């Protein structure tokens, strides 16, 4: 009775085939026309025919099987064993090697203490960043970073890099953190603190920074004295600093970076940045003037010390960034807002880093308000895939509010081994 479920199913289909039009017509309340009846009749005939065909096929198969069984019982050679399904073709198996490197870095952040200017929750998984990185073809590579946080999932960065262009050029296109200064280019998990400096928050696009869609072209300026790189970028503004009101209004970023090894263990990294584009106004008072613009000037300097023989035990990094933010608009009286931070970090054991940062920054669009603050922090690295950090932060806001906070962070990374940023 191999065929019985199939037959039952077919019968069910036939019955339903009768029942459904009947119900439909009953609901419609009209008697079926002669044409409709003829059509239904022919349909039933067709189904009957199909059913008969099916039964015939199954009978034939059953007979064949019985034949085979009889042959087996009589000691005839068994029918050939069907060939095993072809193994996964090598091409399909090895295609896994073309999968991008995937890594997930999570940032668990806690904060204690009172700060009326901060809505940061006491405990929260503030960001889970997934990266996909691979070579696209002989001419380009791609880097995608998806960040999931309390606000949802967003593309933090996603760009293609053409790294085989002639003339010492490097072209990137996609969504990127703009090459303005140092901290703006770094992902949250790559900065040495639990938070971003006040100057970044006030003048360079808040937590997100200047992160826009556009193109970036950079060139090495060959010389024997130092590493010199010039970068020019154009973006469709969509951040807290720049907002393009129409297609023709883009934001532009330019940067020159110089680097020189002072000794085998020490080096100096200096940069100047400039950004210009349609102003986004402030979250509280978006600019009413569509022609309002913002200009940013930045200067950054980093000194590093890392003795090669003890590279895994000792290092020092001192860094400062200075930013001037100059809005120009008919409805907002623009005066230049200035801010900076200075920071130092020292590794004193294989797994321990300690550091401090001083912050001072006026607010964009209201330079009479100057926020300042300081932080000290301690970082413990169980391994390079895991960091635990505690930071004490004291902030004195321009409106007179004072905040004392303790921040706590665990960064943990799984997946492909990412390269370190310098």
């Amino acid at each position: 009775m191999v065929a019985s479920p199939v037959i039952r199913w077919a019968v069910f289909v036939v019955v339903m085939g009768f029942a459904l039009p009947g119900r439909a017509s009953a609901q419609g309340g009209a008697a079926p026309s002669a044409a409709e009846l003829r059509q239904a009749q022919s349909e039933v005939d067709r189904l009957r025919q199909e059913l008969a065909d099916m039964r015939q096929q199954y009978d034939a198969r059953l007979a064949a099987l019985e034949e085979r069984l009889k042959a087996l019982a009589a000691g005839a050679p068994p029918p050939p064993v069907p060939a095993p399904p072809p193994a996964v073709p090598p091409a399909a198996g090895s295609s896994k090697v073309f999968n991008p490197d995937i890594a997930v870095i999570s940032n668990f952040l806690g904060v204690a203490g009172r700060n009326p200017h901060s809505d940061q929750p006491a405990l929260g998984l503030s960001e889970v960043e997934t990266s996909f990185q691979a070579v696209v073809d002989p001419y380009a590579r791609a880097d995608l970073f998806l960040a999931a946080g309390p606000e949802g999932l967003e593309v933090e960065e996603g760009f293609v890099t053409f790294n085989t262009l002639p003339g010492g050029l490097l072209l990137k296109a996609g969504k990127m953190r703009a090459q303005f200064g140092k901290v703006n280019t770094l992902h949250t998990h790559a900065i040495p603190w639990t938070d971003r400096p006040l100057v970044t928050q006030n003048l360079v696009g808040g937590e997100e920074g200047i992160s826009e869609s556009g193109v970036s072209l950079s060139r090495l300026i060959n010389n024997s004295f130092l590493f010199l790189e010039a970068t020019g970028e154009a973006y469709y503004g969509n951040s807290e600093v720049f907002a393009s009101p129409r297609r023709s209004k883009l934001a532009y970023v330019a940067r020159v970076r110089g680097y020189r090894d002072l000794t085998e263990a020490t080096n100096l990294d200096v940069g100047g940045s400039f950004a210009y584009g349609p102003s986004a106004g402030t979250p509280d008072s978006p600019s009413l003037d569509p022609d309002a613009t913002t200009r940013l000037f930045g200067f950054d300097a980093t000194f590093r010390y890392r003795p090669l023989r003890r590279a895994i035990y000792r290092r020092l990094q001192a860094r400062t960034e200075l930013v001037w933010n100059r809005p120009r608009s008919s409805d907002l009286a623009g005066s230049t807002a200035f801010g900076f931070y200075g920071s130092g970090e020292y590794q004193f054991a294989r797994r321990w880093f300690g550091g401090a940062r001083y912050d001072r920054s006026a607010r964009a669009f209201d330079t009479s308000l100057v926020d300042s603050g300081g932080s000290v922090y301690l970082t413990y690295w169980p391994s390079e895939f895991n960091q635990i950090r505690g930071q004490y932060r004291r902030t004195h806001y321009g409106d007179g509010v004072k905040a004392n906070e303790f921040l706590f962070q665990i960064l943990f990374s799984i997946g492909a081994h990412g390269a370190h940023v310098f």
Partner: protein
Amino acid sequence: MKSFISSSAALLLALSLASPAPAAPPKVITTTEDLAALAREVGGDRITVESMARGYQDPHFVEPKPSFIIKLHGADLLIVIGRELEIAWLPPLLTQSRNARIQPGGPGHLDASAGVRILELPTGQITRAMGDVHASGNPHYWLDPDNGRVIAKSIVGALARIAPADKAYFDQRYADFDRRLADAQKRWDAAMAPYKGTKVVTYHRSWPNFTERFGLDVIGYVEPKPGIPPSPSHTIDLIAEMKRQQVKVILVEPYFDLKTPESIVREVGGKVVVLAPSTGGVKDAPDYIKLFDYNINLLTTTFKQVLGR
């Protein structure tokens, strides 16, 4: 417009024809000094060679300094150890080098691990709970002279591709190096023969190819797991194991802190030997053959002192 295109095309063509074939010797850049030393052996004065990492530096943790970008930008050949040794620092440098020749797959990119004997290839599932394990085997393979020979041969192949006119020169230099290395190997094998089977402890898993080649038996590591710093409990266990098996010698790389190894040998009455894991790691190991001369000499001297034979 047409005339503009054709004239600029003509100009480009003229420029490309006018610029003479590079008379300067090919520039070779390597990630480690061992590769630079081997390239120097076969390339002689027909190439210029420079290494990014120094021999006394931990090759896993090199800083990707922008000054390396300039060097990579002008390089004709890049030679890497591969096997994920440089994974934490080389990829971003390569991207920023703006040099198509030396990208992986390019004519000027040589992974020296092709064809060498690789040990500690993981079998089965690996996780980071095992520490910093290398999924494609132990990358410290240059510490077996037979592997050095294979690397030198690969470099000859790569050099012949970028400077075909000098192929005979490279071949002749290789033959000479091969002969000197074979002579040296006889010397090293003879010196180490009395200590075959000697049990030692090493700090990191940097020495499997070396200890296998010269018949040493590694019974443990100062690191509890690769890349994980020594822990008190592991150190206590290691001391007990060394006492039980009467192991007296710990081999340490020059970039590790000696505090833990020193405290262990105080307990077991042995000695710490700071070997050179790479050419240039010490002043007396300026080339590949002298690297082994230095290490073998240091080891045999120490064994004589500690084992009394």
